[in-house]
């Protein structure tokens, strides 16, 4: 069986995979990083989004072999070692942007990439359009949009901390 060597959340591993093994299967089944979820089989829902070399990818439509030599960040690798949450994680909690939590890892990873790609800042409409690749069945997205808006201010250095929610 072919081997893949990749760095996930800073830790390098070499893993045997089948040619058809998906990146998400490698993460969940081989490395037991179950924070990344599988919600569909048509690359529509985005529950599986991780960062590969700094960019968001859908791990359910990426072959494990494509990740050879790559650096991967998953939801488990976002918080600092001392437990301090990433501003996007903090904003999701503050704005009640999650309910069942299943879409949340992919949503957070997509949102971080979206904000990072737009240092000029995103309008509410642009945030909504930027979430086109992620489905959430619980929240109706409104609080997710608010959370991303609050997080972008911190990520771009325009605010020191996440603005408190009003509800």
């Amino acid at each position, binding site marked *: 069986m072919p081997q893949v060597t990749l760095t996930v959340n800073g830790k390098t591993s070499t893993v045997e995979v089948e040619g058809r093994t998906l990146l998400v299967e490698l993460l969940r089944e081989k490395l037991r990083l179950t924070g990344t979820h599988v919600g569909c089989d*048509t690359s529509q829902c985005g529950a599986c989004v991780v960062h590969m070399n700094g960019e968001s990818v859908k791990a359910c439509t990426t072959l494990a072999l494509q990740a050879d030599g790559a650096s991967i960040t998953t939801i488990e690798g976002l918080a600092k070692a001392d437990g301090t*949450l990433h501003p996007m994680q903090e904003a999701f909690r503050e704005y009640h942007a999650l309910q069942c939590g299943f879409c949340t890892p992919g949503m957070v990873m997509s949102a971080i990439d979206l904000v990072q790609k737009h240092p000029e800042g995103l309008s509410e409409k642009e945030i909504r359009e930027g979430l086109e690749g992620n489905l959430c069945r619980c929240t109706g997205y409104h609080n997710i949009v608010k959370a991303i808006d609050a997080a972008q201010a911190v990520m771009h250095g325009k605010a020191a901390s996440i603005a408190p929610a009003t509800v």
Partner: protein
Amino acid sequence: MNVAPFEGIGASVKRKEDLRFLSGRGHYTDDINRPNQTYAMILRSPHAHAAIARIDTAAAAAMPGVVAVFTGADMPSIGGLPCGWQIHSKDGSPMQEPPHPVLAQGKVRFVGDAVAVVIAESKSQARDAAEAIDVDYTVLPAVASTEAAIAKGAPEVHDGVAGNICYDWHIGDPAVNAAAFVGAHKVVEFELVNNRLIPNAMEPRSAIGDFDPTTDEHTLYTTSQNPHVIRLLMGAFVLQIPEHKLRVVAPDVGGGFGSKIFHYAEEAIVTWAAARVHRPVKWTADRNESFMTDAHGRDHVTKARLALDANGKFLALHVTTLANMGAYLSTFAPSVPTYLYATLLAGVYTTPTVYAEVKAVFTNTVPVDAYRGAGRPEATFLLERLVDVAAREMGIDKVALRRRNFIPADAFPYQTPVALQYDSGNYQATLDQALVTADWAGFETRRAAAKARGRLRGIGISTYVEACGIAPSAVVGALGARAGLYEVGTIRVHPTGSVTVLTGTHSHGQGHETTFAQLVTEQLGVPIAQVDIVHGDTAKVPFGMGSYGSRSLAVGGSAMVKAMDKIVLKARKIAAHLLEASLDDVEFDPRAGAFRVAGTDKQKTWGEITLTAYVPHNYPIEELEPGLEETAFYDPKNFTYPGGCHICEVEIEPETGHVQLVNFTAVDDIGRVINPMIVEGQVQGGVAQGIGQALLEGCVYDADGQLLSGSFMDYTMPRADDLAPVSVATHTTLCTHNPLGVKGCGEVGAIGSPPAVINAVVDALKDYGVRHIEMPATPAKVWSIINAGLRLAAE
């Protein structure tokens, strides 16, 4: 003990569960891996209806990694999947209840019906082997729609179920109803479809069976909203495993919306197979399996007549509905179009007589059962479209017509003509508040401004009531439920004063770990950081009926309150002993965490009492047992009746027919609010699903029973840019019969919103002669209406 007062009832406490979900430490069924685990792949029928002559599994069994292959022939002694509710037809006969095999027995009846299961060392090996199973099918004619199923000469889904009728039920007095139509000033006739929906919780269903041969204990890990119900149904009726040898665990569950209430074949398959192969067996649905095996929702075809007097007072309502059951009866399916639908047809109105006939019909489609709202969205959509049509045809303002027929705020408790007695509500108040929030009065200005931009703007309203908190056990028993519907709560106070709550409800997004902890803070004064809510494990929680029908707080929360009443009483007895006072003189102040002798400065802290309960050196041991743990079973006295008003504004682009949601206002009366942040989130999510039903979502089967909307590529789920901000507010009248005064907030969004959206779309198209538009109001449908109108104008 210091208690932060803002953690109790009414505080928007941030959720305790969020940290693990945001860190990737959620613990969902598919995240669980048992030592020496195998993987199951289920071979499913590609045909809607076929006879199976032969299944050849030899090639599959010889494939690499295959542990076992099972078919229906291996499981003949196993009982079928049971139905939890029995309806009787008008003539008194019980509903038709054909067997529902776990694996097909000679026939398949819908696309996705389970035919065989492969157990292998890996998921891919199981998948490969399933493809090698050779099934000799003889395809039979199929029926997919209710109309086709009841047509003369239609193919029978089940041999001997004549006309595919499961039951022909009614409610109300037909003679009184008919008399009320005689001489009516106006009768509005109306037909509509309530579109079939696919629930699509983001987490696909999953199940792991495990068997310990040393103890004969079976464990099932499953994506369920109600693990005790699964233990009861699967243990007693399907596999004949007694409760004490069967543990069902429902860990974190990624959304349910009803679809994870029901007992599914896969749960029985993995539990049974694990004991056969003596290894754990894991199955997780691919999304395409979710589409074709998770119970669908809605799917009604309805004809209605509403009689009015000259002033617009409703005199009588007559409804006939065809409800699709799918190929087999799912767990609660028969109750949905009857006691959760027709009993709500009085709505918020004083209509003196309502008569409804419901025919439930078998078709060659996946079973249909409760989906968020379950019956009540169907009733609300019918009523609120009908009232709008009546207003237009009578030339009466649609808000005025509603007001004229509202149940007055001082008329509660109000007995409807269709069995229910509403305990409280104030429909005028929620309407008034919503009209102000939505700036109803200023709408025509916005319509004119939109017109100047080339857009058609419309506004729609819906005023609704629903029934939650199911339900008094004796009542539902009389109506055909085969289970009681109480709830169970255990409060375990530890020696150092922290608390573990065991609840029979289940949280799969609702935030019970937070709101239930807030109840404990309110009543016992223990900070929520020192309260753990345990749910979802039959080995830990004594019993329970689970979460659905917005019942968790109204029924499960009430059980907790009752158990905490017992805790406080026992703690006061201990305090009275220590303080050498009479019980009547000892008061508990949860905010201060102190037991005081009234009128004195003598007191004991919460921690002193809880420690004494477990270290009973100085203790009234003759009268009181040590320890501080109490359990209560709470059986509700009535349903709860949330109600409210939803207002929607849309803009239509005439060139494309695209409907853009521009404004949505919800004012709901859900009784007392425990956590406003969570309530807002529940309503927003419910409204999103209602908007999805109205504008985007629709399950499509072709006439042969092939599922055409079988993936997220084909079934339109609401995405962030399909929706607009939803303004959520509450107006409270308390529930009068549960100790918290709560009504439930999980479903109001999905119940109130669809007619508000469609009323807005019809309003936007009012110049095009459209009386109704079926859901979902897709661009193609809207464009066709506009174009037909333009053609008419040109001619």
